[in-house]
């Protein structure tokens, strides 16, 4: 009788410890997802802040490229207003902005004066690194979301997740042009 009681108590303790461990693990993962999302946010804001400076610096040189500049400015405004509409809408607007910036830099290549300008050069480096930081932050965010979502679906953590209202998160989709066609080599 006593032995049975001890066994039951031991089992209960094991279950409680396991539940606490899984719950804490989920909280940690969710925290990481939130942190990496805010990192993307920081970099996107940084890009929004840099763009007016760049436009200001290049507009005197680029009398005949008004259209490109306008596109960048518009895409920036659209991206800022899309910020409140959730990851998917925001990703779409930000990808538009990335595209607009790419065509602006392509145009800058045609102006030797502009390329040699110290101010433009440092702005270009700042924007390059910010672009990279956005894509690395996105990569880290998506990795975090993936491990979090897997935890939520897997047994036994899915039970705990259901009990305590953990929900799956959305991925931050990259722009279509980023995705290269996978190389398939059947010869080897």
């Amino acid at each position, binding site marked *: 009788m006593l032995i049975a009681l001890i066994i039951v108590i031991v089992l209960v303790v094991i279950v409680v410890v396991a539940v606490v461990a899984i719950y804490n693990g989920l909280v940690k993962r969710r925290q*990481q997802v939130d942190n*990496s999302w805010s990192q993307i946010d920081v970099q996107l804001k940084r890009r929004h802040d840099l763009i007016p400076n760049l436009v200001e610096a290049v507009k005197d040189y680029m009398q005949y490229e008004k259209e490109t500049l306008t596109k960048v400015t518009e895409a920036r405004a659209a991206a800022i207003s899309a910020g409140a509409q959730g990851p998917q809408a925001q990703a779409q607007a930000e990808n538009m902005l990335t595209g607009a910036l790419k065509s602006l830099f392509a145009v800058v290549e045609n102006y030797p004066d502009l390329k040699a300008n110290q101010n433009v050069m*440092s702005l270009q*480096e700042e924007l390059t*690194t910010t672009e990279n930081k956005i894509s*690395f932050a996105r*990569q*880290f965010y998506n990795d975090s979301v993936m491990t979090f979502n897997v935890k939520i679906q897997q047994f036994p953590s899915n039970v705990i997740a259901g009990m305590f209202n953990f929900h799956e998160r959305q991925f931050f989709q990259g722009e279509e042009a980023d995705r290269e066609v996978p*190389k398939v080599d059947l010869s080897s």
Partner: protein
Amino acid sequence: MYEQIARNKRDSWLLVAVLVGLLAAIGYVFGAAYFGSAQAGFGILGLFGVIAIVWSLIGYYGGAGMVLAVSGAREVTREQAPVLWNVVEEMTIASGLPMPKVYVVVDPAPNAFATGRDPQHAAVAVTSGLLQIMNRQELQGVVAHEMSHVRNLDIRFATLVGILVGVVALVCDLFLRLGFFGFGGRSRDSGGGAGLVLLIIGIVLAVLAPLAAVIVQFAVSRRREYLADASGVQLTRDPAGLADALAKIAADERPLHNATRATAHLYIANPLRKKKTKESAGLFDTHPPIAERIAILRAMEQGAAAPVA
């Protein structure tokens, strides 16, 4: 990755334990041989043991500073090296690690290393030659490799190896010299064959100890380099950058001025080379053959699964 972190923690402890033991044993043999009595041997044993423990603590907390000083690295700010700083910052975002300190070594030979005791106290150093010849993509590959060393805690183990192994060689050299003086003077008074035998053992140990230490040093770093290459690519998702960077480093024949045997294993490519590019790894190489590393990275580029050791 988590296994690698655990392994590095364990190896660091093991290294300290082995070296404390080794140094205590050497202390005993030298003490007994030099002063001609077992009591003196135990005295020196204790002394050496304490010295070894103190030195391990110094190595753990101050090792990174020593390595950086010996390498002639100086810290740079964001303003002084904006591109390098930005690339390091990009890699901290990709890896989720805190920002390390950034150092530059003024030397035309392209190379890089990372040191520190944990990711919160880490430093990444590159040579000015590396900054000159690498484009952004290649620099990113190199920095990603170094950040992988930081994340895997390779930096803790490698820095400890450098500091502790360096000192064993030093102590042995010192006492070998003292031993010869002792042979002419004191040990003759104590007389007897026992002193002579101990002295011979002492000399053998003095020769073997640094050799053993060096072999330990060689054994540790090769697998780590492959792993850091692979997990660096995991950060950049761009094997071509690191492969191109390694190819450029391999093409450069100049040795790095400030590299020593105690710090050589920290670098991304052997800084003490390089008479000839060898095809296979020899027993005494601190680094895997660079051609093989490039071949693995090129295979990743083609979409083959990365052979992670």
